[in-house]
């Protein structure tokens, strides 16, 4: 299974969504994208975008308050 990683910490709106969407478009069916984020706003926006693209997204909050979003395509 292809797993891509993206670090979107510190990026202003709407870049986390823009970059994550590019990442999803690069994935083959069944591939997985892990996006590292550091704000709840980016977490919500990227999750909503992933759902709109027909992908499944799981959020894990890290101890330092950052988030890892795992997006599965197909």
């Amino acid at each position, binding site marked *: 299974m292809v797993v891509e990683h*993206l670090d979107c910490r*510190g990026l202003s*709106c*709407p870049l986390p969504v*823009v970059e994550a969407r590019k990442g999803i478009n690069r994935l083959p069916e069944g591939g997985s994208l*892990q996006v*590292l984020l*550091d704000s709840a*706003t980016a977490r*919500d926006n990227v999750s909503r975008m992933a759902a709109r693209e027909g992908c499944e997204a799981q959020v894990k909050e890290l101890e330092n308050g950052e988030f890892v979003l795992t997006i599965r395509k197909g």
Partner: protein
Amino acid sequence: MERFGKFFSSRWGMISVGLAIGILASTLQKLGNPRNMGICMACFERDIAGALGFHRAALVQYIRPEIIGFVFGAMLAALLFREYRARAGSAPIIRFMLGFFAMVGALLFLGCPWRALLRLAGGDGNAILALVGMACGVALGVFFIKRGYNLGRSQRTSPVVGAVLPLVMLGLLLLLVIKPVLSTGAPFFSTEGPGSQHANYLVALGIAVVIGFVAQRTRFCTMGAMRDVILMRDFHLMSGVVAMLAGAFIMNLIYGQAHWGFAGQPVAHTNQLLNFGGMLLAGLAFALAGGCPGRQLFLSGEGDGDAAVFVLGMIVGAAFAHNFNTAGTPYPNNPANWGWGPAAILVGLAFCIVLGLTMRKPATASA
């Protein structure tokens, strides 16, 4: 608390908050804020600049408690929901200048995007081309974003950094409440004109804290609404903006505040070229900075030092606009009265376009 939080992330949460903002903004106008205004980030930050003596336009000097309340409300929400994150360091001087030019553009139209929507909801037809201009500016911003524009990453930093703007707002509140009398005359408070028109400061502060709170929870952003539709056909933020328009429209009818047409609208002018051009610049600047002027205030409350710098840029831009005659006037249809406004728009657009074309650092790396 979690269910409460999830409501604000939902479509119904966004629509409810938009409706509430529209209703509250119209109510502020009913309670004494300037006619055809209610809430305006640009005008209110300009009034604060006047109160501090940064400009000397006597009709527009007042420490607007709404601006203070937006920051406090957002900060309260961020702290309660553990979203307060002090961060800074993403090209601050650029963000300052984007705030500067956003204000110059907005003041040529005589309103920020919030006021443009509220003016439309009150029947002011001059807001139509302003919103079209803003949409064009945002679309140009989206073009640059798609080509890789970004201002670089911000970094987590000490909570003290994030607390600076809220503390500045606290200082402004103390000036408003205590009204010290200095030999220089500062702080200045208008005795006539729009600066003298305001709701009771405690009521205005309270309403603004509520708006700041719910806007932070929903990530409400008037520029973002247009941007997301253009960029990815996402109508989530737009649903809140449309609800705000609807809420304000209904309350204006109930309060008898709606006046239809172009001529004779309070604190407005009918030069559509300047309305379009001013908001074209403002829309582009907001898009390049990542948020409308309201959103920048709410982000400042969340600890975002870069948004705080944008807000300060807007305040300085307001001072410049009035000192150098680039702000809109009630009689701009005679080119002799246009002042330096059109020139300032061209300079601002040039700055933003050069920025859009050249700030293209690689945004992401593999984690």
